[in-house]
């Protein structure tokens, strides 16, 4: 997205399926990225439009509220929604399914991407569906084509995600040894599954350091999962990194996508952890399914990124909102950050807040990538 080019921006504004009010004072260095915008009564807008499937509609809301988060979870949720879209799809007269369905899917995708920027894994899946649609024979009856597509999607989820994860776990287990101290950052399904498997099935005796950071404290979900399973855990924020790294033996993290220059795009903060581990000469392992491999090359975290809600940064409440709603029902819902230090930040013209979602770890800091194809060096 070239958001700094007025022509492109106008075009993007026009194509938008929903209108929203800008909420962010743009940070100059990131002016080229889609700026975070607050929803402006999305539902009312959408009723008028009609072509967005209800399943996608719900999904879009869930994405924008971060109810569904994480590369795999978002991709699976999207594919399941698309299955519904495809089953409910009726080819309009005068066109064929293989021609029209692609554009129909594209509209759903556009809506989703307006709700929240798509991540690498979703792009791969969308490309896969579109290719499969275009490969459909024009003679195939619509109903057969639809069930074939749904089956293909199921296979994709099974082979590229679930089975891949199983093999990654099998591969990763070889690298977890007795008395290891494993450091991980934030939340990743594959990493938590790997650690749980090592503890429960393999009975390996190791401990985990969970590193977390604001604003969403997703590491607390990781912590809860591991502690509930009986794994010995230490919990720190990024400020405790150098304190803990002295005793850490391995770092295992998840990734959003692996770029073709060997760099890793992942939750913001991963690069900080990887760099410090590299500085302490601790091996860094990245768990990444091959469907997250990307053709693009990025040298830094600027060229492509996602900008989040700046208000998240001024909220100094340290409780993970998801955990809060799940486990501590007694607490009042999301506190309105009115008594925070920066609650009046909008009134100070010179003050800007930057809430990035991803960062790029150069391949230099990564020792190994564990994929379902085996363990590979990040340089490939």
């Amino acid at each position, binding site marked *: 997205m070239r958001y700094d080019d007025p022509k492109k921006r106008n075009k993007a504004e026009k194509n938008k399926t929903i209108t929203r009010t800008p909420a962010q004072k743009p940070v100059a260095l990131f002016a080229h990225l889609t700026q975070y915008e607050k929803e402006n009564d999305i539902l009312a807008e959408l009723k008028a439009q009609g072509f967005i499937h209800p399943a996608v509609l719900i999904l879009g809301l869930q994405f924008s509220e971060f109810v569904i988060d994480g590369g795999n979870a978002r991709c699976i949720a999207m594919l399941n929604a698309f299955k519904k879209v495809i089953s409910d799809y009726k080819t309009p007269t005068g066109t064929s399914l293989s021609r029209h369905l692609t554009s129909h899917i594209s509209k759903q995708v556009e809506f989703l991407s307006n709700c929240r920027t798509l991540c690498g894994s979703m792009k791969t899946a969308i490309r896969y569906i579109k290719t499969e649609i275009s490969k459909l024979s024009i003679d195939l009856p619509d109903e057969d084509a639809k069930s074939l597509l749904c089956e293909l999607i199921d296979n994709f989820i099974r082979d590229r995600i679930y089975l891949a994860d199983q093999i990654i776990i099998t591969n990763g287990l070889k690298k977890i040894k007795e008395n290891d101290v494993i450091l991980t950052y934030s939340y990743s399904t594959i990493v938590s599954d790997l650690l749980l498997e090592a503890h429960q099935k393999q009975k390996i005796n190791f401990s985990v350091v969970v590193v977390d950071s604001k604003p969403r404290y997703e590491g607390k979900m990781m912590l809860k999962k591991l502690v509930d399973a009986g794994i010995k855990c230490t*919990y*720190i924020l990024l400020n*405790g990194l150098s*304190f803990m790294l002295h005793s850490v033996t391995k770092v295992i993290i998840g990734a959003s996508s692996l770029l073709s220059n060997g760099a890793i795009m992942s939750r913001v903060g991963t690069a900080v952890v990887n760099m410090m581990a590299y500085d302490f000469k601790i091996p860094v392992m990245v768990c990444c399914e091959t469907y997250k491999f990307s053709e693009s090359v990025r040298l830094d975290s600027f060229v492509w990124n996602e900008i989040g809600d700046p208000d998240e*940064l001024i909220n100094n409440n340290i409780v993970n909102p998801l955990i809060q709603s799940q486990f501590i029902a007694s607490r009042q819902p999301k506190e309105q950050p009115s008594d925070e230090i920066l609650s009046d930040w909008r009134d100070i013209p*010179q003050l*800007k807040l930057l809430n990035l979602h991803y960062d790029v770890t150069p391949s230099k800091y990564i020792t190994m990538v564990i994929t379902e194809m085996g363990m590979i060096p990040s340089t490939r």
Partner: protein
Amino acid sequence: MVLDNQVDLLISKLKRRQIVNSGQAAIQTAYLMRMVIAATKSHQADKLIDTVKEIGKRLVSAQPMELVVGNIIRRVLHIIREEYTTIVRQEQNKIPQFPSSSSTMFNLLETSDDIDYSNTFYDFKQLVIDGIKDLIDELETQEQNIANQALEHIHSNEIIMTLNNSGTVQAYLKQAAKTRTFQVIVADTSPTHEGQVMAKALASAGIETTLIPDSAIFAVMSRVNKVILGSHTVTANGGLIACAGSRTIATAAKYHSTPVVVCIGLYKLSPQYPFDIEEYNLCVSPDQVYTYDEGDILEKVDIINPYYEYVPPELVSLFITNVGPQPPTYMYRLLNEFYSKEDFEI
């Protein structure tokens, strides 16, 4: 006695961490020392040294992490010794010997004559009190002195990164902003969120400021021209004992070849070496990291919230002190200049 009360008061303030600002701790120690000298009846230098040392020991042990207290005691002792030797030399009509420092290769063969501190001189105490007055002046103006050097190191349109809320750094940046336009990126510094205070202060002073969470330090570093930090203490080898997170920001700067500048008052320079790194990692209550109402998980998890951490000298490019800029490898020179070797251990 009034004096005893004053000593006890400062000790209890230090113990309860009511003085967390090391600048305040330094000034209050210096004032107390002036009172101590004035109240001591003896005019003998060795008596003064003993008294200062005795009270100094109590103050230092009240809050061992507040190294500036010990530093000020050392400065006062150095003043006493300097003033005394000057008088002695004048009395003996001796030209000041080069060098007077006791730490050189000279002692290998030439034993420097030990100074007898037991003589009494008229006016000597007044000279010491004047010396401490100068020290207090220095402490009160050091921030401005450092800030005045800002334009030598900040150029226009620069992007500067900092973290935490160091008064020295804040004054430094604000001074530069009077004549230069530049941007500052402030890391939030969880869990204290002091970075937010800093960001607000800088932005209110008209500097274009961007607040980022600590997690974005690496992502943004590639566009940063300079990292400017404050520090709690500087060790004798030029290392820092700074707020937790400083090492991360300095390491990120190292991998981007970005210079790291540390603004620091001379009074923070301590003759200690980082013998035991963990000794300096003061861990504070984890409730800033994990609240108690987040469930029973707390009992099963180690939650660690370090307050300070050690930053090795190779990560620092330059120190800006109130007596001018110094590279980290030469910090020991300042040590020899402002402290007496015999006082390194109080």
